[in-house]
């Protein structure tokens, strides 16, 4: 225990590691603030959900419509007074005002205008759901993905099969009415992209940088400081490498927790998700671009968030293992970074060299290196290479096993190696 605490102290007292951790947290905070200009608008939905709930059905829709019309009447009262005009919808209203709203209406009235405008946008989106989903063709999506990557033969067939399986899930999703739930309007706010595509990807890269630094630093600490002859001939001896492995894992988890906790806490303070945590992640509103995010399983937003966090922790451990093995084999920290970077690059480039007709092209998708590129579609339909139902789990299990075996071999080798 004493030894491990002392190893941990080496990390905690490393200015680079602590400095980077602080820098990353500052960076994430800036990123969140930069994207927060619309945070007030989000409250409109929070209030609507407060009033009607998020589940969309006929009864809810009727209430929603009545409320909307009621509000429109109040607005018309004001407009009549100020401009002697009457509007049937906010679209009509906004068409009249390219500029100059502020000159005519006071703050309170502007608030009502904004609220009504947003209400109408949500209402319109509700109205289009059925039409969109009846024309949404999963197999068409498959073909467009196949074309995008110019897959042929077996490779194309695999993609079709995956999407066929996904079609069933899609039917189930529609039957469950998972898509008919209010959520922040993706096409306007792109919150799924901000959180899961941008922020989580940033977080993951930050974590990997720190994990690589910590692990290489601690594993090679003695060699870098030329104390290996002293330390590895003590009673603890080469078993010290085990302490180092445990401490590096512990430190990686600590660092991951700190970054996630601080960043996500700030994110959810800035963007208020209250009332929406349990909305299915496959809600039609959660469509940032042309195609909705469709999960393989029925999951609420908060479940998706926790699965994503869980996967981040798992990936942290995988990278911890990978860099442990590399740093152990290469006794120089900087050279170890270099090798890690090269391996990283190779894993991103090599799969592209596989023939586009064979299934080998998919091997490259089952790596942690590939996983971290697309955190926004984990557990979801994710294009040609990531629409395997158990994509994440299979990748995790295979790599965890490989890394586990290699780590054991690496430790065994170290115990029999000349130092």
């Amino acid at each position: 225990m004493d030894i491990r605490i002392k190893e941990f102290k080496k990390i905690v007292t490393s200015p680079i590691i602590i400095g980077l951790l602080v820098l990353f947290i500052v960076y994430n905070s800036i990123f969140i603030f930069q994207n927060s200009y619309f945070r007030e608008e989000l409250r409109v939905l929070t209030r609507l959900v407060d009033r009607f709930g998020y589940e969309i059905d006929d009864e809810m829709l009727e209430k929603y419509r009545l409320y909307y019309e009621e509000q429109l009447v109040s607005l018309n009262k004001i407009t009549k007074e100020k401009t002697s005009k009457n509007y049937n919808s906010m679209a009509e209203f906004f068409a009249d005002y390219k500029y100059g709203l502020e000159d005519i209406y006071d703050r309170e009235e502007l608030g009502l205008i904004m609220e009504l405008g947003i209400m109408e946008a949500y209402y319109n989106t509700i109205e289009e759901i059925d039409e969109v989903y009846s024309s949404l063709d999963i197999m068409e999506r498959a073909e467009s993905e196949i074309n995008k990557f110019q897959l042929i033969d077996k490779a194309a067939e695999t993609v079709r099969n995956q999407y066929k399986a996904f079609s069933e899930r899609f039917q189930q999703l529609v039957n469950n009415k998972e898509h008919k739930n209010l959520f922040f309007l993706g096409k306007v706010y792109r919150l799924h992209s901000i959180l899961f595509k941008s922020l989580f990807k940033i977080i993951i890269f930050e974590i990997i940088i720190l994990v690589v630094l910590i692990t290489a630093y601690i594993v090679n600490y003695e060699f870098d400081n030329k104390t290996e002859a002293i330390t590895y001939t003590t009673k603890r001896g080469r078993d010290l490498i085990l302490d180092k492995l445990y401490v590096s894992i512990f430190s990686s988890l600590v660092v991951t927790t700190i970054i996630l906790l601080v960043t996500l806490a700030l994110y959810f303070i800035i963007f208020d998700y209250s009332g929406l945590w349990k909305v299915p992640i496959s809600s039609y509103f959660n469509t940032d671009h042309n195609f909705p995010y469709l999960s393989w399983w029925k999951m609420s937003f908060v479940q998706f968030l926790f699965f994503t966090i869980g996967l981040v922790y798992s990936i942290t451990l995988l990278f911890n293992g990978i860099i442990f093995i590399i740093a152990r084999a290469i006794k120089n920290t900087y050279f170890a970074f270099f090798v890690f970077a090269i391996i990283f690059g190779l894993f991103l480039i090599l799969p592209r060299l596989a023939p586009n007709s064979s299934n080998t092209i998919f091997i490259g998708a089952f790596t942690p290196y590939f996983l971290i590129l697309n955190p926004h579609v984990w557990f979801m339909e994710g294009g040609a290479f990531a629409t395997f139902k158990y994509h994440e789990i299979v990748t995790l299990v295979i790599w965890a096993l490989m890394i586990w075996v290699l780590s054991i071999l690496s430790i065994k080798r170290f115990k029999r190696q000349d130092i």
Partner: protein
Amino acid sequence: MLIVTNVSKSYGKLSVLENIDIEFSNGVYGLLAPNGAGKTTLIKMLTTLLFPNEGEILYNGTNIFHMGDGYRDILGYLPQEFGYYKNYSARQFLNYLAALKGLERNLAKVRINELLELVGLANVADKKMKKYSGGMVQRVGIAQAMLNDPKILILDEPTAGLDPKERVRFRNLLAELSRDKIVILSTHIVSDIESIANEIIMIKDKKVLYKDSINSICKTLEGMVYETSIDYAQANRFRNHYFSLSEKQEGDKMKIRFISENKLDDSWESVSPNIEDVFLYVYKDEVIKEG
């Protein structure tokens, strides 16, 4: 009892030691050989850092690599070159190593104070080691080797970087410490071990050449070491005929100590050989520059 049997070691294709057999029992052993002879290589095998390619090393009959931490627990080692943590004080550094050596915390505290006193660093014990001189760092090294009160103390060139005063101090310290231990120290500086080593081990051409008491080793040159005074003008001619051990200016003449099989001149004075003579003679074909 530490026994090296039939041990060979090579680095890749470079063979450094071949079929080494040595027995160590309690006492001080001086490993005396020129640079590159394989002293450090032998020592690293004795300290489990290197694995022999052939042969084995036994402590009380058990292979030291099988003994594992049981062996390392009774081992104290000062490497020839070692680093330290710049921002640690001597006390912190020793504390860290005490933990690795499995010393109980309170015991370690007492022991560290004793040792700091012993190596004369008590007054600077809490200063960062990056402010230490080379000799001070070396003394920290000696202290850490003795932390666990080892039964086998192995010191690789322990006096390197120590000034003459410190060398004397160290020698006395060692004589005191070595009572019920195996102490092995390597050096290529003869005077370091002349007075304290019970036995000298010389390695030549990858093999053990001598392992004997100083007296016995010196006897091998008995009747072959002479001193005489010659003119400077003759010096070169003389050196071509006889192996010169040392030369000294004496007035306008040169006093030369040299090796000869027979006494060929009455002016030659037969002197008793010392270990340095043996060292110089044994390694005469190797380029040595003594420090």
